[in-house]
């Protein structure tokens, strides 16, 4: 099946950067109420404005291979990178996942995230693939980094 690429199975079996760590500025808990998938996520971001760096994303997740892999890829692709770049990745991921298959995803921007491109064919699974990202953006809100998200919305609208 196209959906279950080797990379997804790898990430879901061995989630990268899993476990909850300190320090962190925000901890959030997100669930997918239709299937019961859950993720607890902590983020540690330093610096301000365009200087902001995602130092750590740590998490404890329970869910299907798609949600586990997506969260693992989120951590892998984001840790150590500037927040603005991570948010660009988020936008590209979201665009790919909600494109119904029209946007195959750009590996330059979303890295291993392209392995999730097959999810776009299955509308019921898009939520699974976005669960970790929803937790991440919520954690940004909780830690007072609304500005970065607002800029993102303005940039894409």
């Amino acid at each position, binding site marked *: 099946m196209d959906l*279950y690429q080797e990379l997804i199975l790898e990430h879901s079996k061995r989630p990268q950067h899993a476990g909850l760590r300190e320090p962190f500025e925000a901890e959030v808990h997100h669930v997918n109420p239709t*299937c*019961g998938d859950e993720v607890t996520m902590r983020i540690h971001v330093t610096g301000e404005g365009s200087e902001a760096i995602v130092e750590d994303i740590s998490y404890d997740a329970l*869910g299907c*291979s798609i949600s586990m892999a997506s969260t693992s890829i989120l951590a892998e692709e984001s840790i150590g990178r500037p927040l603005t770049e991570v948010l660009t990745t988020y936008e590209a991921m979201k665009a790919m996942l909600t494109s119904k298959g029209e946007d195959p995803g750009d590996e330059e921007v979303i890295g291993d995230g392209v392995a999730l491109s097959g999810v776009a064919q299955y509308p019921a699974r898009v939520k699974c693939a976005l669960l970790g990202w929803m937790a991440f953006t919520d954690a940004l809100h909780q830690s007072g980094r609304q500005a970065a998200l607002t800029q993102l919305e303005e940039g894409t609208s």
Partner: protein
Amino acid sequence: MTAEPFTTEEVARIRADFPILARTVRAGAPLVYLDSGATSHKPVQVLDAERDFYERLNSAPHRGAHALSEEATAAYEGARERIAAFIGAQAQDVVFTKNATEALNLAAYAFSNSPHPGIPGSERFTLGAGDEVLVTEMEHHANLVPWQELCRRTGATLRWIPVTDEGRLDLATLDELVTERTKVVAVVHASNVLGTLNPIETIVERAHEVGALVVLDACQSVPHLAIDVADLGVDLLAFSGHKMFGPSGIGVLWGRRELLEAMPPFLTGGSMIETVRMEGSTYAPPPQRFEAGVPMTAQAIGLAAAVDYINELDIKRIHAHELALVDRLLAGLATRPWVTVVGPTDLESRGGTVAFVVDGVHAHDVGQVLDNAGVAVRVGHHCAWPLHRRFKVAATTRASFAAYNTVDEVDALLEALDRVPQIFGVAS
């Protein structure tokens, strides 16, 4: 005489009544629909009945004196009679609702802190601090959340009957759980996850000893088992139309007459009234008291056609047929050590649903692999999250059967299931 499952030829004839079963899904796979517990398909007889109503009778029943309205009223009330007879009830004790969820909410919202001044006998439906509502750990959210909310509104306490590891109600402590404080016992007849058929007579007997009302969620039993409300002895019973070959948008609440008469209304407005003045209103007798607004006439007529269809097939044979499929599925799963069935693994007191987990693989992923082979099952917590917590699983895969399912479809499920350990690299 024990009823026999349908023969291959009979199932083929039944399937011909359901046009959707002929379609393919995904990359051309024939549809193997094992999700009738979520919603069943509709035979042409039901579709035709609905269409016939719109083509010949369409109008608002119980309103106006023109010819169409009279004929629509007769069709609507005739449907009520056939549906009532199907569960051994009188037409006037059958209330049409939007769905079973609304029927259960109607029952829960009848209760409040004080009696309704305009409805004699409504003190039966008062509840307050010190009173208790008893549910079970295997309830669908529709027969749990309304009672949680009722307790919150009135100050009553919610308690529940636990579930054993085998997926049956643990009735060892029933006498301690049902006490003089218990005012309502709300319980599911056939679990929508485990398939367990609960011993309703035992629960009714104990509940009635202390004067508690028994509300039965019969969504997964009325479509599959011969039900007689008098035999069951419950006080209120809810089921939905769309799980029994009927249309969506219609459910039923049956109640013992003296109870319905003493029940305050839930949804209020047009056609449920007796008199209306600016200062206040009085209400129509049941069932009209509980049917505010222009009713779902076509759906009632469609549901009556579904009842006729089931009567023609013989519900005892439907049950025997579904149990034969459950038996084959359980036997197939038993030979796959990487599968764990959640619920009873024998046919004793069982309905037509089977839930299971593939060790090490999330149910969503199992469902996706099955779907790829055209096999439609339900995955998730099936609106019974506390039950899944009880079994320490996030989600299960559930197959549920109807009269139109075949032995070959059970085998198709098992065959597709064998791909799961291959794809996810877990031991098989």
